[in-house]
C-alpha cells in the first residue's frame, strides 16, 4: 500500500468536520515531537500522527498504540509554530479508535480509563480504593504497590467507603447520552 494513495477513509475530512482542525497546516517541523515527554516511547510521534492523518492513513494510526501513550500535557499544541493543535487531533483519533473497536487499547492504560469512568458513573466521584482494586483485577497486577498499602491507609489517604452524590441519576443520564456513539458522529 503506497503512502500517497487511499483517500477512502477520508480521515482528514472527518477530523476537520469534528474539530475544525486542518491537518494540512502541519509543515512537519518536528517541534511538537521534540518537546513531547513521551516521544521516545512512541513509535508514531505527534508529527508522524499529523502526517498520517493528513494522508488519511487510518489503518496505520489505529494499528499502533502510540495515540494511547499521549499524556495530554498539551505541550505540542502550545508550541506549534503554525497554530496546529496536535493534542486535539490525537484526542479525536482516540475517540475514533474506540468507535471502531472499543476494546482496542493497551491493556493497562485501557483498564485505568475504564475503571476510572466506571467509578464516576456509579458514584459521581472517583472512589480511589475502588479504582485501584478494579485496576488490579483487570490487569492482573495484584501485587504492584502491595507493600505501600498499609502506609496509605495509615496516612488516611484512602477512604474505605465511596461517597455517592445525590445527583447520581444525572450521572447515569450523562453517561448514556455521551456513550452513544451514533450521537457523536464519528466516522
Amino acid at each position: 500500500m503506497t503512502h500517497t494513495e487511499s483517500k477512502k477513509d477520508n480521515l482528514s475530512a472527518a477530523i476537520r468536520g469534528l474539530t475544525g482542525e486542518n491537518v494540512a497546516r502541519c509543515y512537519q517541523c518536528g517541534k511538537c515531537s521534540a518537546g513531547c515527554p513521551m516521544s521516545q516511547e512512541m513509535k508514531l510521534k505527534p508529527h508522524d500522527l499529523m502526517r498520517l492523518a493528513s494522508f488519511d492513513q487510518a489503518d496505520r494510526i489505529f494499528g499502533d498504540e502510540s495515540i494511547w501513550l499521549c499524556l495530554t500535557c498539551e505541550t505540542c499544541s502550545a508550541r506549534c509554530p503554525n497554530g496546529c493543535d496536535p493534542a486535539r487531533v490525537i484526542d479525536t483519533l482516540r475517540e475514533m479508535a474506540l468507535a471502531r473497536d472499543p476494546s482496542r487499547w493497551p491493556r493497562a492504560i485501557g483498564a485505568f480509563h475504564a475503571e476510572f469512568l466506571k467509578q464516576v458513573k456509579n458514584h459521581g466521584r472517583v472512589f480511589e480504593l475502588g479504582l485501584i482494586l478494579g485496576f488490579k483485577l483487570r490487569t492482573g497486577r495484584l501485587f504492584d504497590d502491595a507493600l505501600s498499602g498499609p502506609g496509605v491507609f495509615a496516612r488516611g489517604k484512602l477512604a474505605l467507603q465511596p461517597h455517592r452524590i445525590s445527583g447520581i441519576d444525572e450521572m447515569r443520564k450523562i453517561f448514556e447520552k455521551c456513550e452513544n456513539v451514533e450521537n457523536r458522529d464519528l466516522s
Partner: protein
Amino acid sequence: MSRIGVFVCHCGENIARTVDCAAVAKRLAELPGVAHSVDYKYMCSDPGQALIKQAIAEKGLTGVVVAACSPHMHEKTFRRAVSGAGMNPHFCEMANIREHCSWIHEDRVKATDKATQLASFIVEKVKRNRPLQPIHIPIERRALVIGGGIAGIQASLDIADGNREVVLVEKEPSIGGHMSQLSETFPTLDCSQCILTPRMVETYQHERIRLHTYSEVESVEGYIGNFTVRIRKKSRSIDEEKCNGCGACIQACPNRKSPNEFDTGLGKRTSVYVPFPQAVPNIPVIDRASCLFFRGRAKGAKKDVCKKCEAACGKGAIAFDREDRIIEEKVGAIIIATGYQLYSIGKEQANSAFKGYGEYGYGTIPDVIDGLQFERLASASGPTAGKILRPSDGKEPKRIIFLQCIGSRDPAKGIQFCSKICCMYVAKHTMLYKHKVHGGQATVFFMDIRAAGKGYDEFSRRAIEEDGARYIRGRVSKLERDGEAIKVYGYDTLNGAPVVMDADMVVLATAMVPQTGISTLAQKLSVSYDRYGFINEAHPKLRPVETNTAGIFVAGACQAPRDIPDSVSMASAAAAKVLGLFSNEKLEREPSVAVVNRELCTGCFHCQRVCPYGAIDRFEVKDRKDTLLKTVAEVNKGICQGCGTCQATCPSKSVELEGFTDEQVFAEINALEWTGQGNSGEGGRR
C-alpha cells in the same frame, strides 16, 4: 452640431467572431449626430489609424468613437492619431466591445445588440466632451532619500550621478546601515565594510548629495514634484563645522561603560562617541543620557560636571548648548529606504502583534544570541577582534548550534512570512565559525533551505560538504541552561528521532522586520503599509519600486525582507524612476481631474473629508477690498487622481470630473433607451 465618427474594430477574430461588426457600424450610422460609421479589421494598425485621420479631414468630424478593445490598451494610440489630425485628443474615446462584450458572451445576436448599445453610450458622451489640455505642474528636480543604508546610498549615488541633487537623511550618526555591521557577505565572503566604505565616502564627498546624519524626517507636505520636507537635525552637541574628527574628546571621556549599539550591546563605548571607526561623517555625538555633564545639569547641579571633552578639544568644537534644529528642504521625489531591524529574542517586541520565545528563554540564557550579534563577534573590528567568544565568560565555544526560522514562518508568534536571508547567513556563519574555531562543531536546526540566488545553493552546500556543518531537519522545542552550557531539545525528522544536544553558544536566526517608527513615517508620507509595517508597493509584480502615492518610491528591506544584491538593484530601479520623473522640466498630468464651480460651492467641505488623496484645499473668495466673501473648495490638480468621490458626495453638485460630468454620465444612461434598428425584436423604442 455634432459630427461623430464611429469606427468598429473586428480585432481579427476576437470581436468579429461574436459580434457582427458591420451590422453595428450600420446601426450606429442611424444615430443622430453620427456623420461617419465604418468597421475595419484592425483599428490599432497603421492603416486603421489612417482611416481615422482621413475621416476627420474629409468629413470634418468633431469627435471620434472607436468601438474596440479596452481603453487601457489603446486609448493612447487613438488619441495620438486624432491629435495628429488636428483634433483635441479628449474628443476621442473608446467603447469596449471586446473585454466587456465579445469575450464574455456567446450569443451572436445579443452580443451584437449589446455592442451597439455600448458604442451608442460613448457617442452620447463624446457629444458632450470638452477640449481638455494636459495639466503641467512644475517639478522641483531634487530628491529626498530617507535612510542611509546600502539601498539609500545606492539610490543617492545613482541620482547624483544622473546630475540631480539628493538630500539624504539618516537617523543614526553615521550612514552605512546594518551592512556596516556585517563581517563578511554571502555568497562571496567579501568583507562587508571593505566594499561598503568606499561607497560611504563617495556619498559624503559627492557634490550633489546633501547628507544629514543624526537627523529624522519631521513632516512632509505637498505632492509629487512639490514636496516640502522638514527635517529635524538632532543635536550632536558638537559644532560640525569646527570638528575635524581627531578623536581627542573620545580619548578624554571618563565614561567607558555605555553599551555600544553598533556592537549590538556586546561592547562598550564612551558618552561622546563615534559609532565605529569608519563612520561617515567622522564626527562624534554626545549621548546626553549617559554624559556626566548633561546628567549633572538635569539633576540641577550648581557647578558644571566633567567637561573633559571640551578641555581636550583643540578646535573648540564641543557645543553643549547646541539644540535640535529644524531645516526645510524642497524636493520633487522621495525614496523610502529605511531598511530593517531584527525581531527581538527577548520578551519585549517592536510590534505588539509579535510574541517572544519563552521556550528559548526570552533572551535571558547567556550565550544565546542573534545573527547580528554573531556578525559583530566575527568582525575584525568587533568587540572581540574577530574571535568567536562567549559573551558570558569569553571562552571559545567548541559546540555552536544555529536555529533557523526564529519568528519567521511562525504565525503562532505573529509572523507568517519567510525572511529570505537567514538560510544563507546561517550557512555563512557556520563557515566563518569553522574557519576561526578549528576543531569546533557547528550544527544547524532547519525546516527548509532557501538558497535561490546566483551561487547561493552552491554556497550553502559548501557549508555542509566542505566545512563540516551538520544540518538537522527539525525544530527545537526548548533551550535550557545546563551549568555552563545550553541544552537544546530538537528533533531530526529525516531520521525520525528526538535529538538532545549540548551547546556552548546558540545563535537564533531571527526574522527581518521593519524599523520601529515606520508606521509614523509612512503616515507622514501618506503611503500605505501592511500589517507588519512593510511599505506597500504599487503593484507587487509590475510596479515594485513605486508606492501608491505619486512621487514616493521605495527601495530595500523596508518593503520586504531581502538581501544586499536585491536591495541595490531595487535602489537603482527607484533612482531610475526618479530620474525619469525629473527628465522633464514640468510634469504632465492627465486632465481628468475634478473642478469646483466656485459660484455653486457652499463651502461645506464634505469633499475634503472624503477625498482619499488629500487633494482638496480651501480657497478664500474675496472682493476687491479684500473682504472675505466665502471660503470654497479647490482641487489641487497636482494631487487629484480623478476618482470622482467628491463628485458623488457633493450635496450642491458643485464639483465635477473633467470628462465625466454629470451631464455626460446621464447622457450615457439615457442612451439605454435607444436600441437601434433591426435588432432581435425585443427592442424598439420604449
